[in-house]
């Protein structure tokens, strides 16, 4: 065991030395994984801050939307792209996060935001553990069917317990905006966007670091050939459940962010269409890489927007205008999958490789 | 004027992606001949059959003629109509269908229920073990029985040319001998032409009229079986004995 560890460290050190010789890019690659990701996250947060300072409140909210969708899709990437488990149920985990947030704000108003968010993550992880354990033996369409039932069934629980969960109207609450100390510098919407992105980037660092490490390798092994992975000694069932737990935690956190932004948690936000759109966005962006989640989230927010604008610009009636975004998204989905089966990230990688002359 | 060869292959090339699997293969088979295609693993024997039967697309410039008709670009499902039946490696029997259904499948493309029924009865006479297991799922058959079913299914189409890919693979020598004898009987009785791919070169050459030796997709030797058996150098180099 110790010798294999030494063997793994030696090449890493050699790579580090080699890349250090290649200038700033080399310097970047020679940093250990965690600090590298933290620095990248910090840079991204700064970028968001700049972006939201120079644009209006509406754009800030849209930027925040991209943020939590990115988190939800990235969590799904772990499950679908890295460990090969097709899940159609991510909407259900977002539902859990949103409602946990709403309930905590309503019933324990003194709790700070961080605690509320942590509670949402915990609830999501617990749900993920239960679902993962229940579905560990399922594959492909059987797993898809079970998670589909979850996505549609869980939000219906809100209707069953209307007193506690607000029924079809959902729960409403209000959260403090920017702290008074910063109220001059930072608008409410900008503050919210920054909070959401801070949370999202933190979670992404965890995701990225985990997927680089042993867990990530195990998951990819299972995705590529489960029987082979089992014979190689990888604890398949446990790894799959862990993937579910992390994915559910991310989804739940994303739902919490959404609730935080909107001040509501309603069952109608968590339709079947949401879960399907998350999966579709993931494939659109590109499986197998966390960057794919970014493109997917951007697509989710901006394609629908583009569809709306298109309908308005063409001066169409309200029926058409209301449904145009969804039709647009569906059509684009088909076109992109047929033209670029590896998604946007796949197309970009290929472009990058051809530019670098490889 | 002599009749055209039943199967003529000219300049046949094909590739899997970037890998050239067949290079300008030429082959002529006359009606009623049993021709062997030999060579080491990966030489291109299976690819040759697959390209002829339409499962693998040939490169431009290739030509395959069956009884004078150009069938080069035809898809696999059209080849039975031109009298070419292909039994792939392993037989290709459909495990979830019954023996009877597998047999029927072979003759489906011909119109006429009664004709198909009669043909099937013939096949079951030819292979009594299959008749006993008519209603069993093909997946429950032994290796030898499955190979018999595969050949029977191909014969249901009343082919003029039968392409056989390693029929003896995994089978006991006794069963292999029976299959070879069957082929010779068929040739004598119906003028069936057979192209036989075999790893077991010595065994194949003992029942065939002439042969073709492939190496890395190209023809390195051809001639009558007697000539090939006598060529020691070639045998050592390409056939391993």
């Amino acid at each position, binding site marked *: 065991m110790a010798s294999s560890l030494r063997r793994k460290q030696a090449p890493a050190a050699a790579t580090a030395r080699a890349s250090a010789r290649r200038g700033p890019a080399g310097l970047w690659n020679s940093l250990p994984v965690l600090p590298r990701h933290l620095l990248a996250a910090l840079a991204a947060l700064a970028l968001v801050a700049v972006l939201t300072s120079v644009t209006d409140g509406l754009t800030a909210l849209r930027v925040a939307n991209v943020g939590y969708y990115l988190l939800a899709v990235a969590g799904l990437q772990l499950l679908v792209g890295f460990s090969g488990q097709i899940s159609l149920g991510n909407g259900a985990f977002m539902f859990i996060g949103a409602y946990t947030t709403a309930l905590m704000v309503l019933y324990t108003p003194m709790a700070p935001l961080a605690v509320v968010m942590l509670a949402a993550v915990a609830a999501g992880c617990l749900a993920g553990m239960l679902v993962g354990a229940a579905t560990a033996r399922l594959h492909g369409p059987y797993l898809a069917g079970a998670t589909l039932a979850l996505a*549609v069934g869980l939000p219906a629980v809100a209707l069953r317990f209307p007193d506690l969960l607000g029924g079809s109207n959902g729960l409403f609450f209000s959260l403090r905006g920017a702290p008074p100390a910063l109220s001059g510098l930072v608008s409410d919407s900008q503050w919210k966007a920054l909070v959401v992105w801070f949370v999202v980037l933190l979670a992404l660092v965890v995701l990225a670091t985990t997927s680089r490490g042993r867990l990530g390798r195990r998951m990819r092994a299972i995705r590529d050939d489960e*029987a082979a992975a089992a014979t190689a000694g990888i604890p398949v069932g446990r790894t799959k459940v862990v993937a579910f737990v992390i994915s559910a935690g991310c989804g739940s956190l994303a739902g919490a962010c959404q609730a935080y932004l909107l001040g509501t948690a309603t069952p109608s936000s968590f339709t079947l269409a949401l879960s399907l759109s998350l999966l579709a966005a993931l494939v659109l962006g590109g499986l197998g890489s966390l960057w794919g989640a970014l493109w997917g989230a951007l697509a989710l927010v901006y394609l629908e927007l583009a569809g709306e604008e298109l309908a308005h610009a063409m001066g169409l009636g309200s029926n058409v205008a209301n449904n145009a975004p969804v039709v647009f998204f569906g059509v684009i989905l088909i076109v992109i999958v047929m033209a670029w089966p590896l998604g946007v990230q796949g197309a970009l990688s290929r472009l990058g490789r051809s530019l670098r002359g490889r | 004027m002599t009749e055209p060869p039943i199967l003529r292959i000219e300049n046949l090339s094909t590739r899997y992606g970037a890998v050239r699997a067949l290079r300008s293969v030429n082959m002529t088979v006359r009606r009623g001949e049993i021709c062997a295609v030999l060579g080491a693993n990966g030489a291109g024997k299976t690819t040759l059959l697959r390209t002829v039967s339409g499962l693998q697309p040939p490169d431009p410039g290739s030509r395959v003629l069956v009884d004078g008709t150009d069938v080069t670009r035809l898809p696999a499902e059209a080849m039975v109509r031109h009298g070419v039946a292909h039994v792939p490696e392993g037989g290709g029997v459909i495990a979830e269908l019954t023996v009877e259904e597998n047999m*029927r499948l072979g003759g489906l493309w011909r119109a006429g229920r009664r004709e198909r029924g009669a043909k099937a009865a013939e096949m079951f006479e030819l292979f009594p073990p299959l008749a006993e297991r008519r209603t069993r799922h093909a997946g429950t058959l032994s290796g030898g029985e499955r190979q018999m079913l595969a050949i029977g299914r191909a014969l249901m189409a009343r082919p003029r040319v039968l392409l056989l890919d390693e029929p003896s693979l995994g089978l006991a020598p006794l069963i292999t001998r029976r299959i070879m004898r069957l082929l010779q009987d068929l040739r004598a009785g119906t003028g069936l032409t057979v192209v036989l791919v075999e790893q077991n070169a010595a065994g194949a050459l003992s029942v065939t009229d002439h042969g073709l030796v492939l190496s890395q997709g190209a023809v390195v030797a051809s001639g009558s079986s007697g000539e090939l058996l006598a060529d020691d150098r070639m045998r050592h180099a390409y056939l391993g004995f």
Partner: protein
Amino acid sequence: MNHFIDLTLNGIANGAIYAALGLSLVIIYQATRVVNFAQPALALIAVYLAYAVYLATGSYWTGFAVALASGTLMGVLAERLLIRPVHGRSPLSAIIVTLGLLLALQGAAGMVWGNGDYSFPYPMDFRGRFSPAGAFGLGAVAVVTLLLFALYRFTPLGLRMRAAALHPESARLSGVRVGLMLTAGWGIASAIGALAGMLAAPPFLSPNALDAVFVYGIAAAVLGGLESPFGAVAGGLLLGVGLSYVSGYAGPELTTLAALAILVVVLSVRPDGLFTRPVARKV
């Protein structure tokens, strides 16, 4: 006791609908190894067209015929134009294409006919314990199932379709036009899906009217094991009856979660569905 019998009969009537939708999903899965998420949307459009025809002609049955015909046509077009081109790529590609089609068609229905509810007629009188409408639904599904069985078992076309689905290469070598068989499979499956839509649409038709039924249809197909059309029918009936009990004794909002629970319980004992013969994986 009365309540129990009511629930059982109701469950069987609903189960027939889930069975039909499950059947259409399994036929497509067997033929092309794709879960057709667009099936409810194809059925939805077929039902809307039937509604338009019904409004124009006043005849329910003309509309019914139009639904079946248009369902078949749309299934054929979907396979030929959208699914065939992505054949052979990763299975997720085909799933996403069907998802895109689902979203696009549901949205299109909203665009053309609006998001509101239309009052949609039953095939027959729907009142009573086991209404004529319920009996019709059960009867229609039973007839379809028998016809399908006869097709597969006794006709050359059925044999070709099965061969094309089970072992396309061998089928081609026996002269079967595999592509055509796959298209035919989609056409038949979509016709059955349109039937399910016509049975499920009453009393109100809207773009989301078939969502819940779709979930139960998938559950029925998965329960039965995606390899067996008749497993889907059995799965659908079982699910219908089970969910009817849940709805009657615990509340209608919990039916989908109950479906999930049933799925999880059954699949944990038989991960490939109730009626699939276990196939050993060769390592």
